[in-house]
């Protein structure tokens, strides 16, 4: 079986649930307590897609997208990007467009996914209101707590990365 490694980066503001999404995807676990990520945390999960073994090396980058606060080198060589924001905090999706422009400038060929996390904290009505406020259409409304859409999101990104 062919085996390849792909680097995936999770970016977004602090407290949006990047670490929780990774934890849910890799270990199928969720913890209520919030521990801020220092620098970067690396995890690994292997997926098999169309007879290809894909080793996903997930870089969970600490809470900022800004040009000064995150070493540029953390982004380099990434094969896929997940931009995470918190559906309950508008400040976390206010700058999506600028942030994505900044990332795309460094990684023009890497596919990306927008993920609105913490869906479980909103009612249907609130969710509709929030979606209306988003500056860009969001493909994945996830919940790291319940696991909703987490696996599918990583799966789709993997397929985009290997072109399947």
């Amino acid at each position, binding site marked *: 079986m062919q*085996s390849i*490694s*792909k*680097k995936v980066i999770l970016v977004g503001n602090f407290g949006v649930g990047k670490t929780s999404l990774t934890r849910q995807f890799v270990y199928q676990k969720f913890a209520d307590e919030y521990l801020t990520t220092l*620098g*970067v945390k*690396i*995890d*690994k999960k292997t997926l098999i897609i169309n007879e290809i073994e894909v*080793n996903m*090396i997930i*870089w969970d980058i600490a809470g900022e997208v800004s040009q000064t606060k995150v*070493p*540029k*080198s*953390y982004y*380099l*060589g*990434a*094969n896929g990007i997940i931009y995470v924001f918190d559906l309950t905090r508008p400040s976390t999706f206010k700058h999506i467009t600028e942030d994505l422009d900044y990332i795309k400038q460094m990684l023009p060929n890497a596919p990306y996914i927008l993920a609105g996390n913490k869906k479980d904290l909103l009612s249907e009505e609130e969710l509709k209101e929030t979606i209306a406020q988003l500056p860009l259409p969001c493909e994945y409304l996830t919940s790291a707590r319940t696991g909703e859409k987490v696996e599918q999101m990583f799966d789709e990104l993997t397929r985009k990365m290997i072109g399947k």
Partner: protein
Amino acid sequence: MEDKVFQRLKDILFEEESQKRTLLENEVASLRKEISPAQISNRLEPIVNQKVEELKSNLTALSGEALGEAIRAQIRNNKEDIIDALYPIMGSLIQKFIQVELERLSENINKQIDDTFSFQAIKREFLGLFGVKQQEQLMKNAMKPEIEESLVIYQNSGLLIGHYTSKDTADQDMIAGMLTAIKSFVEDAFQQKGGHLDMIEYGTFKIIIQNSYKYYIVAIVAGVVDTNYKLKLLRYLNLFAERHLAKLQEENLSEGAVSMLLDKHIKEFNPDL
């Protein structure tokens, strides 16, 4: 009749004393009353209470200062006593560390001695003929550095291209990622063009890093690493990079192929050559 006269005379003669005595008796009675336990208690209680309150409020400051000064004086004047007191705690830790290290050293030397007919033993005997002491050779070999892991990593992404390991421990993909993150962080933080992180020390391990254009090679070494060993290893890894990694894309080598090459070369590395 005589008694009456005598009494009258006595009254006249002792009238003044009698008055003084009555006064004194009254005085004593009054004093007795004043110093009765109930009266003393009533009078002393407010004074004692006041003093107790004063002490309470000043106790922390007084005791802190006094204790601090007492400890300083104790350290100044009785250094040996302090060492004696701390020794059971610190000493046992140091003792344990030295014991473990000596056991390891002893095991290594025993292993070498047991191997009587090995090439190394014959070499020791031979060098002994020229005045090189066997003990020195045994010590040198016992503390010899050993490459436990080696990784070839993409400079940019931190993805692993190949690895060698003598003990299967942690996941090499994750080690490669974390090392790249640390390396990137240090190099970004100091922003020195051309500067590279080339060594990390962790416990008894040295993580030696050889940077090349697109890749970097990491060797995790246990044992005593001196400058000479480090330079020879860096040169050797650089040679490996030039010979095999420069043409990696052209030759389209898989991770398995790079790992095999690395395994072969790391096992062949001899710092004495």
